[in-house]
């Protein structure tokens, strides 16, 4: 069982560890740092591997933890950031092995920051193995085959980024706890309310299929070949969600949904992606002038179709009804469009499970972020109804309502017919 209060404690543990680690980097290197996004992700081994497979050379250390909590801690600097750190420690010495020893030393001190933070929060002792220096561009350089869960299982992964003010400094930390160890920690907690891990896994598998269906539909409607780039469930503090969305202006469509569960659904398109979408669907070029009313309608209605697809999939699997509002549109800074949704949830909860999906075009620069943020207690109630044996057979189908003043369902049905999409 996933005790939500315990997850809250783990989140505080991740944040405390990151702050201590950042605090130890700064005096050593004189690089002014701050803690970036800290998250608990429910994710799969292949997803973590894909993230590390970005052709950027990374160096750092890998450490095994035992006793109070068991798992693998991975601290990675991008190559340029590693050089920057090393340069502050080994001025006038550019030997490769000096860089290596400087990075290893800094990583080790930062790791002890994380571990001390966790031990404080958990009030336990944690043993740390001798660090192994890692260096490479492919995931195999950092991870063993059995470090994180296989494709059909979700692993809980603690993630933190530490950023430097005013530079492109990149440091990532992953902690991949052993599942038995995490379960033992959950058992130590007195129960608040809780979610069954297997049901979250089942729900995630269904959500993944839903996301693939959305990508397929979008491909058919736009002619832009789309793929699911990221799929994950994050457990985050509500106030941290704005840090996780792009700061640039986003073309955004929001829905609230009611039923089991209730919550909010948000589609964020970069300006370039929204323009491409409009051009592909209604043939209107924006020429840098921003979206016309017709363009806005098109973005709203496509989002509406996608929202229906996602939520109907959820409702079918959970055997409930989930209604959603007509879409509302905003073109504003990413954090500003997330802000009203977290304000809406914050009276009743401190943390949220965020179902985060990124669709990416295969060969053009088009991407779309979809955030579904259910009400926490509703999610718990909804998952109680979930029959995990039913996941593979559930249909994901779309029904939709048109926005006021936008194209109506018949219009879209027509678009669907022309594009060969089953709406």
């Amino acid at each position, binding site marked *: 069982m996933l005790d939500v209060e315990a997850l809250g404690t783990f989140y505080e543990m991740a944040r405390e560890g990151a*702050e201590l680690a*950042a*605090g130890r*980097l*700064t*005096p050593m290197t*004189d*690089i*002014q*740092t*701050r*803690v970036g996004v800290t998250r608990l992700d429910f994710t799969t081994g292949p997803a973590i591997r894909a993230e590390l497979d970005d052709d950027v050379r990374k160096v750092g250390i890998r450490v095994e933890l035992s006793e109070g909590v068991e798992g693998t801690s991975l601290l990675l600097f991008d190559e340029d950031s590693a050089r920057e750190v090393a340069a502050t420690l080994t001025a006038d010495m550019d030997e490769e092995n000096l860089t290596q020893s400087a990075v290893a030393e800094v990583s080790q001190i930062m790791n002890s920051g994380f571990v001390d933070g966790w031990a404080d929060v958990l009030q336990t002792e944690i043993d740390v193995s001798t660090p192994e220096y890692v260096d490479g561009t492919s995931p195999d350089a950092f991870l063993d085959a059995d470090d994180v869960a296989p494709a059909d299982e979700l692993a809980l992964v603690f993630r933190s980024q530490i950023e430097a*003010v*005013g530079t492109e400094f990149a440091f990532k930390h992953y902690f991949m706890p052993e599942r038995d160890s995490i379960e033992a920690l959950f058992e130590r907690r007195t129960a608040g309310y809780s979610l069954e891990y297997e049901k979250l896994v089942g729900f995630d598998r269904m959500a993944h299929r839903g996301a693939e269906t959305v990508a397929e539909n979008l491909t058919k409607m736009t002619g832009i070949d789309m793929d699911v780039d990221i799929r994950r469930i994050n457990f985050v503090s*509500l*106030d*941290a969600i*704005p*840090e996780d969305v792009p*700061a640039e*202006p986003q073309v955004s469509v*929001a*829905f*609230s949904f*009611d039923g089991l569960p*209730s919550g*909010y659904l948000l589609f964020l398109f970069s300006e370039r992606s929204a323009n491409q979408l409009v051009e592909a669907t209604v043939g209107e070029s924006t020429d840098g002038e921003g979206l016309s009313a017709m363009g806005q309608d098109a973005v709203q209605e496509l989002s509406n179709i996608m929202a229906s697809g996602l939520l109907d999939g959820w409702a079918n699997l959970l055997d409930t009804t989930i209604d959603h*509002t007509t879409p*509302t549109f*905003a*073109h*504003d*800074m*990413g*954090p*500003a*469009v*997330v*802000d*009203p*949704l*977290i*304000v*809406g949830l*914050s*009276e009743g909860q401190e943390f949220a499970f965020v179902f985060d999906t990124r669709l990416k075009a295969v060969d053009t620069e088009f991407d779309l972020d979809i955030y579904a943020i259910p009400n926490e207690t509703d999610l718990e109630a909804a998952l109680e109804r979930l029959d995990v044996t039913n996941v593979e057979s559930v249909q994901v189908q779309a029904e939709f309502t048109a926005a006021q003043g936008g194209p109506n369902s018949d219009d879209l049905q027509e678009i669907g017919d022309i594009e060969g999409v089953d709406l």
Partner: protein
Amino acid sequence: MKTFASGSDDTAGPERLLVGVSNYVVGTGEQTLVAYGLGACVSVVLYDEAAGVGGVTHAMLPRQPASGGAPGKYVDAAVESLLREMVGTGAGFGDVEATIVGGATIFELQNLAAGAGARNVEAARDQLDSLEVPVVAEAVGGDVGRTVELDVATGRVTVSTADGETEAL
């Protein structure tokens, strides 16, 4: 050099300090305090020109419940805590002036607490009134997100929006 994360920080030096959601930050010297992407959230900027001490809040909800909770999350508690910390850093209680920014309605959604932004603005005005801090400027309401910056050295408050408009208050 010091680390800054999300809470209060009084580090000296030419720095931009981010004021995250549910936080407030006191600044001195050459610091610039920035609250990004305010939607329904409200920032209250407090500044004492003579002391060269300023501060910015970034709160989500209007009033702290009797059961408590992180002060930075609530407009009323954040303003009071920020003022207290500024006085502790050298500001004069009677010398502080305020600017209120945010409280917009970005989306009209049925389930979204109607008027959340307006209630945050109202809570800010009420709290500043009860603390006898004069409000010298406001950029509130409407349907646009805002980013607010306070240059502590000069006291200049600027508000920018997604369409590239920047306004000095």
